[in-house]
């Protein structure tokens, strides 16, 4: 498992600097966006970060690591778990970046309450986890090529939902509240449900891992 995570780390470090740079730029822009009440760039940065596991799986396919790993003393559970751990690490990183962005926004004069901060972090985690919850099993079942279409389709659906929510928002396009003004416990409940589906997705991916090449 350690070797699998190390491989993904080396690949991410070498192959995805532009993706990482884009995330940092988005987060930087969102510092100013937050002051005007918009978290669009923050969520967009999370989308980009959420694509990393998919990119890593694509690289696995292009180097045929996905096939070669079948010759190594690792189980399917370990292969899949490594990718899901990457998602969790990235979600954690996104949560930390969100906190940093909000702290910087406060330093620049924005007002952020504890509840707002918690809601924001939960939104980021939900966005990060849902993307991969849906896409990763598809990638394992159909391979990164077809799985990519699933991810694009999912982004289109989420964009449509965000668009609809934005259109109804009192603050217009600048304010994106995925869950409206629901109470904090509801946000935690949504996060718990998301984590449940993430775990189900992990089990499904283990069951489907290797099926694309059979």
């Amino acid at each position, binding site marked *: 498992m350690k070797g*699998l995570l190390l491989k993904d780390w080396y690949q991410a470090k070498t192959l995805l600097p532009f993706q990482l740079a884009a995330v940092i730029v988005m987060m930087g822009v969102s510092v100013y966006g937050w002051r005007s009440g918009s978290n669009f760039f923050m969520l967009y940065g999370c989308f980009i970060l959420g694509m990393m596991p998919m990119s890593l799986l694509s690289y696995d396919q292009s180097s045929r690591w996905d096939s070669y790993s079948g010759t190594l003393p690792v189980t399917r559970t370990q292969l899949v778990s490594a990718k899901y751990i990457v998602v969790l690490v990235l979600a954690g990183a996104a949560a930390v970046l969100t906190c940093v962005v909000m702290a910087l926004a406060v330093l620049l004069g924005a007002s952020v309450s504890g509840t707002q901060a918690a809601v924001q972090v939960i939104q980021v985690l939900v966005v990060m986890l849902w993307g991969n919850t849906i896409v990763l099993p598809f990638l394992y079942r159909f391979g990164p090529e077809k799985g990519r279409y699933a991810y694009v389709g999912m982004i289109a659906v989420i964009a449509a939902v965000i668009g609809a929510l934005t259109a109804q928002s009192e603050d217009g396009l600048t304010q994106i509240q995925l869950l409206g003004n629901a109470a904090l416990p509801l946000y935690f409940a949504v996060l718990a449900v998301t984590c449940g589906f993430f775990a189900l997705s992990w089990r499904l991916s283990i069951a489907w891992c290797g099926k694309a090449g059979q």
Partner: protein
Amino acid sequence: MNALELQGLTKEYKDFTLGPLDLTVPGGTICGLIGENGAGKSTTIRLILDMVQRDGGTVTILGRDNRADPVGIKEEIGVVMGSDGIPLCLNAVQLGKVMAGIYRSWDPAFYADLCRKFGLPDKKQYKDYSTGMKMKLCMAVALSHHPKLLLLDEATNGLDPVVRDQVTDLLLDFARDEDHSILISSHIVSDLEKLCDTIAFLHKGRLLLWEDKDILRQEYALWQGTAAQLAQLDPGAVYGRRVTPYGVSALVRREKMPAGARLAPVSIEELFVMMVKGENAQ
């Protein structure tokens, strides 16, 4: 103990059926799996590793069913699948660290020695390696956890004669230990002729022949004559033929030939080509 035993191994695809295959690789030997492109060599190796689900038969590796303890068995197998599978952006040092986190018995000093011996650069990414360098790195990875069985799929293809010679020496050195065995597949028969103790011919998913290399050379021979002379031979003695404007060459079984017939030794490559032609003609 046999390093590898295949019994009635079968796999069916829509347009191709492999097997049933019966093949044994005794400990301390090198077995060459020869076949044309698409004969089923890679599928056989994937079935051995349980990377593809078999439809029938058994695979026993180092005395254990390949499904009984797949992780434990793979700790004792080194695999090279051409030059594929190594992440393209990794360098030799990074790859060594990755493998150290995967194999319990990984030997970093041995790996570093092999990389040095092969002249592999530490910091160059795998994608920038030449074909020969890629193959040497794959070999270093396959050997550095001290496996007992090596499975090599088209491991010498595309190599220049110098690198091929290096790889051949390395494999011969590995097989010198009685506990070490190799199954190597290729369609480049001349490489296997140098290396192998036993040869298995795979043709359209069927095992045409599996025999000790020296016995093959003793049992089969090349006969040359005219078409009229060929017609007079026992048809059961002729396994394949090549007709040219200058006459006919035929692959024959020595024991079935009349006394005094002029026979020439046959190389494994000729044996394979003639046998496949004979099969195709049927």
